């Protein structure tokens, strides 16, 4: 019983440590710069809605938002099918060199990203893809593959072999068995991977910084980083916090929507059903 109480206390404390700072960001976004520094935990005297207006106007967040949305969706549309296909082969169809190839994919997760940036810059320049949304999309797909393949391989390995065998006995080809049986079974994994990738892509900064040079094709993180830097020189912290809220809210919202899918699929559970 004591152990249970301790567990519950931990659950509660961690939840509090997550919620309080986030509410604090929200509250701070309504304060004047002076209030932020002199009474950081006090309530705003009068809510500063102008902070949001300034952030919106100065950072041009609407346009960056659209750019980020296009790039994120396009990346997922390419990434998830081809990532799942590769992961499926790694999980179910051992072949000579499979370990080596899988290792090559894993390696990508470990190599520090920003040192590939200079060679990557030349490569994209040669392909005529510099400063284009499709160039950024393809790069994002490539850089998201290691995580995607790694996690999905694990998920495909946990799927029961019997389902595949049953499908094959029913006369399905291997490709058809994948699309009709195994892929739907892996839906919980795909969703988790998709959400995590979407969030990662939404927050991605270094690659976009180098690839996207023109202002009108900036993604959201570039816009926010810009805002952050600008605020450091102008000390308009109110606008910065408002910008942070504008940035966080859609991510949290998207996550909240997907949360139900994750929840549902985890409850139903492909293995249980």
């Amino acid at each position, binding site marked *: 019983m004591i152990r249970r109480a301790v567990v519950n206390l931990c659950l509660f404390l961690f939840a509090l440590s997550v919620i309080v700072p986030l509410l604090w960001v929200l509250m701070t976004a309504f304060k004047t710069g002076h209030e932020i520094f*002199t009474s950081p935990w006090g309530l705003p005297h009068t809510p500063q809605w102008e902070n949001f207006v300034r952030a919106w106007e100065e950072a041009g967040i609407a346009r960056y938002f659209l750019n980020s949305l296009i790039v994120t969706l396009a990346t997922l*549309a390419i990434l998830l099918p081809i990532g799942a296909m590769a992961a499926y082969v790694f999980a179910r169809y051992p072949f000579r060199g499979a370990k080596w190839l899988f290792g090559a994919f894993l390696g990508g997760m470990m190599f520090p990203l920003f040192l590939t940036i200079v060679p990557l810059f030349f490569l994209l320049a040669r392909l005529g893809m510099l400063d284009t949304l499709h160039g950024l999309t393809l790069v994002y797909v490539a850089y998201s593959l290691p995580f995607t393949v790694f996690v999905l391989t694990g998920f495909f390995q946990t799927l029961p072999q019997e389902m595949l065998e049953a499908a094959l006995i029913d006369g399905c080809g291997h490709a058809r068995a994948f699309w009709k049986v195994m892929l739907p079974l892996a839906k919980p994994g795909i969703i988790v991977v998709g959400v995590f990738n979407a969030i990662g892509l939404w927050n991605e900064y270094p690659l976009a910084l180098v690839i996207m040079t023109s202002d009108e094709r900036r993604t959201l993180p570039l816009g926010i*980083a810009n805002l952050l830097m600008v605020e450091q020189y102008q000390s308009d912290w109110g606008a910065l916090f408002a910008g942070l809220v504008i940035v966080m809210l859609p991510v949290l919202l998207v996550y909240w929507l997907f949360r139900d899918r994750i929840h549902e699929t985890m409850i139903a559970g492909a293995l249980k059903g």
Partner: protein
Amino acid sequence: MKAGRYALIVTVLIAVSAVIVSCGRQQPTSSLEVACFKGGYGIDFFEQAAREYEKLHPGVKIKVWGNPRVWEQLRPRFVAGNPPDLTYPGWGMDHWALVYEGQVIPLDEYLDSPPYGKSEGKWRDTFEPSLLALCQYQGKTYMLPYFFSMLGWWYNKDMFEKNGWKPPRTWSELLALCEKIKAKGIAPITYQGIYPAYAVSGFLIPWAISAGGIEAFDNAQNLVPGAWKSPAFLKAAQMIDELRRRGYFQEGANGMDHTGAQMEFISGRAAMIPCGTWLHSEMRNVLPPNFRMGFMLPPVLDDGKGDPTAVGIGIEPWMVPTKGKNRELAIDFYKYMTSLEKAKQFVEQKGTLMSIRGSDQANYPEHLKEPVEVFRRAKTVWSVEYRQWYPKLGKEVEDATAALLAGNITPEQFVERLERAAEATRQDKNIPKHTYTRGKDR
């Protein structure tokens, strides 16, 4: 997957149309790309200057762009041989590496030509010579200053007046004043601990100069053996250590970033802070309406060898890339920007000092009046150049200063660390060496 496929199609369409639009654009007769660091003063002034220049020179098209991390975008463009025509890359760019690699051109030929819109005279003579001297390597001028900043201490004017305190000019005055301030429950001095560069240029170097004369600092910059552990630097380190031991630095300052420490100052929780003349513009959005800040030089030793009027300055240079496509136009545009008229405008709009002679006749904002006076009186000008010449040495000096301020090392250990770092730089054959020759400063 349908939504995703649709998004992909949209993406491709947008990209394709962007290519078509950019191909169809009419090229003006001559165009210029200017990439600028977007710091506290913004880039709107340069954009405005570009529009004016375009009006004066029909057919010219100038694209001014910039952001706070412009150097990150410029690096690959320099490597690719596709740099802008004119650039102000900001403090994050390793300027001298550009010089060593032949990526920016020597400008002496142009500096000897007439200034903007004139048929005689030398452009060179319109600049403050002490600032131009910072832009040289092996006798050639590779960079050009625009505005410059002065380094010193700021004090809370109202607090000082209310308590009848006078800005301290000497070390003994400083110690006496700090005791009084401390007794009031106010931190005498705060500093931007996360970025020790402020403490280096606000405490260490002025005090080393005061103790040993300007040669002590010049020798250190020129890597003369033993210069970094000279009695002058040891004295400066002991002064820092003494302030720490007496508890005159604000508690927690070593964990504050620049805005944090500067807010402590503005909020009246600390009486003095070392900072450059950019302080006012950096904090303008959070300054209480009636806040008045005064500028002073760091207090000097009562019997110091050094010139008590010596002042530290800093520039953020502009340069012309070797592989830029329109060198002549870039130079002429920069000549326009450095004309006396534009220089005065910059002073008035942005509230900073300019490297153009005579621009100090402009209408300075209130907070700059004292710095201008200090600069006019200064007989010696110094600048932290070793930090740009030898970044590793610069980093080690800053780290050691942070450790000294935290009380983790003694002044003796401190100067040993500095000298070791200087020795490592001296021995490294791959680091090109600079020599600063002090002419007549003013």
